[in-house]
């Protein structure tokens, strides 16, 4: 027995005109298979449509706010890692490029002799500076406290500058507060 077009009518879920409905009813009286299909479809639709709407546990939006802040924090950390990694990669790339470019131009013997010469010159300068300092301390002992004061002042200024620099870095990487968009 042919089940068409009755099977298609049943499964399409579209509304039928009176003639089609009559023809379908007549077919269902004689065809057991289509009858079974019709009953099954009806029962499935009843089961689906009568089921209660699932609802989330109370406090859904509070949990969402928490999740949003965690998500932002992770995003911030990821961004920081990418930035650091990027900077290192760029620096590494530049150094490698310079090394590759200069590899053949470098005269290692010349560079080594230059290094030794510069080192000896620097050592000689340090010795010279030391002797000047000795002569100053011998001749002008009054300058020592002033030099100490100047040194302490310079050291304090440098420390303050370093602290300020670190504080701005910490503030830069600090997670955003709620209400501040990341976009």
């Amino acid at each position, binding site marked *: 027995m042919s089940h068409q077009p009755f099977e*298609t009518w049943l*499964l*399409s*879920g579209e509304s039928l005109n009176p003639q089609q409905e009559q023809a379908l009813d007549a077919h269902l009286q004689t065809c057991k298979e289509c009858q*079974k*299909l019709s009953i*099954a*479809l009806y*029962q*499935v*639709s009843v*089961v*689906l*449509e009568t*089921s*209660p*709407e*699932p*609802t*989330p*546990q109370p406090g*859904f*939006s509070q*949990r*969402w*706010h928490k*999740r*949003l802040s965690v*998500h932002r924090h992770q995003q911030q950390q990821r961004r920081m890692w990418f930035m650091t990694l990027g900077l290192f990669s760029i620096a590494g790339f530049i150094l490698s490029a310079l090394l590759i470019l200069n590899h053949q131009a470098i005269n290692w013997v010349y560079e080594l002799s230059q290094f030794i010469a510069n080192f000896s010159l620097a050592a000689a300068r340090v010795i010279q500076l030391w002797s000047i300092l000795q002569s100053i301390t011998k001749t002008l002992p009054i300058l020592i406290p002033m030099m100490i004061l100047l040194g302490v002042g310079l050291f304090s200024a440098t420390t303050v500058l370093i602290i300020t620099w670190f504080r701005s870095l910490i503030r830069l990487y600090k997670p955003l507060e*709620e*209400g*501040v*968009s990341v*976009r």
Partner: protein
Amino acid sequence: MHEKEALWIKQALNGSDKAFGFLVDSYQKPVYSLCYRMLGNSRDAEDAAQESFIRAYQNLKKYDPKRSFATWLLSIASHYCIDRIRKRQLVTVSTDVLQTELIPDRNTPNPERRFQEQEHELMIQNLMNDLKPIDRAAVALRYWHEYSEVEIAEALNLTVSAVKSRLYRARQTLAKTWMDMENAHLIGERRPHESPAF
């Protein structure tokens, strides 16, 4: 669109979490319900619904105010659930979760009724498990959200004829699963007050 809703969207676009929170409050039920129907358990549904709202907030700039906000949100949720089902490559629900959820709490006021409800849920999940992820989304939107074929097409980025053929195929699968369940006597006709143990 509701005036308040338009205002919340505008404020959320300017970075107000509180305004988007109001939208979460308003749409938590339909989004959670869709996720639950697609994923089959409350734990995954909660996670998927939360994630859908995060994605919606992040992509709020892409939202077209001419479209329905609910359809846009459900579109995000259904695509997320489809991806999730595909990733786990398992259309069936974890039996552990279902077994745990099927045991009625002794402190529930009406454990018999609660058990029947859970049995009903299990029946629905058995029916849904045999459907392909996109078909599952189409059925959920059609039966529980009463979406038209045009709206389903909009939400799932399909053509209307594709939606029609997917719903046709889904009904065929649902009817077959139902008949199989009947043959396997999974759909018992328990009398009221009868213990679920018998």
